[in-house]
């Protein structure tokens, strides 16, 4: 039976097209437009072609050197966050109670840090870690450790990483806990009958069953930490010096501090492409591994 054809149906998608255009397409194209121009203020623009990109990707230039420094810092930060948060989150999930009132109590406690807005987390830690009035900072200094995140780069790094771990380990733990809860009791009983110790149970049952949620957890935590801005900005402002200036902080400095719209636009496009590329590689490898496993 032939269905009546009416091309006016296309009009129904217009609202979405308009919405996407205003929320995504036009802003992105504006940035693309900026990235190939130079501006000397006064709303005057001059064509610069791929100039900014060449400069950005060449570490010997000012802009390039700055970009790569920030990129390595950001990657190091993401790596540290993942290395600490994933094992710690698994550990927390494994030690959570499996029944009784403790379940809801620990879920609430774990959810608390996730509910706090980024800049509030930043403020909490900015105060918490201060050497003069902060509970943590003053206590550590009282123990005779010279700790000052505003002056020492290592202390600044320890502070921002500790803050991220404090804020986001819960997410990993909650995801892992959900994965653990989906394991039927028969698996644990069978493992006991098979004489498996705690480590064998973890390797043979718990870790494989958590694999899917762990994939999500790693992806989420990588993306979030790679794009982090607010928290370190509030605590260290990117300092001391440039020690904690991550890509996003540097980007804002260039765009809004120096008002170099062309450089900032080129940088944000490359930044965006890195995020997309990492996402794609991650997605492709996990799906390939799953389809291989299914064979």
């Amino acid at each position, binding site marked *: 039976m032939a269905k009546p054809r009416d091309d006016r149906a296309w009009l129904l998608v217009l609202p979405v097209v308009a919405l996407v255009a205003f929320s995504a397409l036009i802003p992105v194209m504006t940035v693309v437009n900026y990235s190939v121009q130079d501006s000397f203020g006064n709303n005057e623009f001059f064509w610069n072609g791929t100039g900014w990109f060449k400069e950005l990707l060449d570490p010997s230039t000012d802009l390039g050197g700055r970009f790569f420094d920030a990129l390595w810092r950001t990657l190091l930060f993401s790596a540290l966050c993942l290395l600490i948060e994933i094992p710690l989150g698994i550990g927390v999930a494994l030690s959570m109670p499996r029944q009784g009132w403790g379940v809801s109590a620990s879920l609430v406690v774990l959810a608390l840090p996730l509910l706090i807005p980024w800049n509030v987390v930043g403020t909490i830690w900015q105060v918490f870690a201060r050497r003069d009035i902060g509970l943590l900072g003053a206590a550590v200094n009282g123990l005779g450790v010279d700790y000052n995140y505003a002056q020492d780069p290592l202390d600044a790094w320890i502070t921002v990483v500790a803050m991220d771990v404090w804020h986001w380990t819960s997410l990993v733990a909650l995801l892992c806990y959900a994965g653990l809860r989906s394991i039927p009791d*028969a698996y644990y009983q*069978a493992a006991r*009958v*098979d*004489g498996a110790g705690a480590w064998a149970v973890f390797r043979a049952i718990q870790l494989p069953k958590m694999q899917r949620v762990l994939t999500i957890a790693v992806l989420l935590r990588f993306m979030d930490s790679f794009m982090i801005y607010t928290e370190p900005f509030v605590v260290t402002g990117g300092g001391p010096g440039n020690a904690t200036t991550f890509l996003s902080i540097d980007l804002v400095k260039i765009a809004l501090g120096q008002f170099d719209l062309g450089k900032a636009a080129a940088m944000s496009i490359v930044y965006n492409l890195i995020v997309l590329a990492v996402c794609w590689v991650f997605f492709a490898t996990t799906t390939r591994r799953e389809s291989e496993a299914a064979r």
Partner: protein
Amino acid sequence: MARIGFERLAHAYPGAAGYALKPMDMDWDHAGAYALLGPSGCGKTTLLNIISGLLRPSEGRVLFDGRDVSSLTTERRNVAQVFQFPVVYDTMTVRENLAFPLRNRGVPAAAARARVEHVAGLLGLSERLDRRARNLGADEKQKISLGRGLVRGDVAAILFDEPLTVIDPHLKWELRSRLKELHRQVPVTMIYVTHDQTEALTFADRVVVMSEGEVVQVGTPEALFERPEHTFVGHFIGSPGMNLLRCAVEGREAVLPGGHRVGLPRAYPALAGRVELGIRPEFAAVSREGGLPVTLRRVEDLGRRRIARVELGGSPLAATLPEGMPVPAEPRLVLDPARLHIYADGRLAAGSA
């Protein structure tokens, strides 16, 4: 390999009213094949988990060869257990799955390998040893679970908790006969939980029939069929189950519904409570003459035999319609007097010859 004994064993789940398993004393022989048979919720899995140590009984003791193991963990009891739903370790191959219980106990690699291959051969898994376990079908996953139960040569007992539930019907026969065969080769106590009487009767030397947390009879398949000690056993075993008729017993005679009298093989004292006469359909035949007058309701053709549904004085009964016999116009029911049993309040009443 062990004799398994229970002393005043009982279990009540915390917070639940009453016993899930009522107090009992039993002794099971070394290297026997036992089946725990009963409907869902009768306590058979509870009993199994108590034997394996996954559950600690709230009362009484479990003995292996006379040694109290009630407080020992599953690992220390040296039993193997196969569960209702297949448990396989996803990331491992079939071979690694089968070797897992051996590896955890530090069995040398060469010995483990030989043992794994032997068990895989018994279960028809040899071809698949190097496949990943997660990609196999439910049948084969359950074979792996069975294999992990069988792979240890030194266990005191192997426990099966309705292991064939997820298996295709045509494979059930095959796997059950393989288990039987294995039991003949290796003298180990096997305990098999099921709600399927065919499985229980074909697998076990001794069937333990349970109902509502109570062991109502332990016996050979023949004993359960010929001399049920409880109306539950009569009804649950056999297809269709035993006929039970309310009656009054006067010495060597029973007065059936409709006032019919039948002679009994034994004399009974005065019985209290609910008195019933039990006769299996196999021993009640429809006939043209003799016996008692009945009304025929319908005939069910089961292929190799025919079952007549009749009514005697208003009570329904199942009887056998002998082969080749046309349905009589005025059917009579002939009961084999030697096969009549009298039950008082559900339990077999002892008569005297």
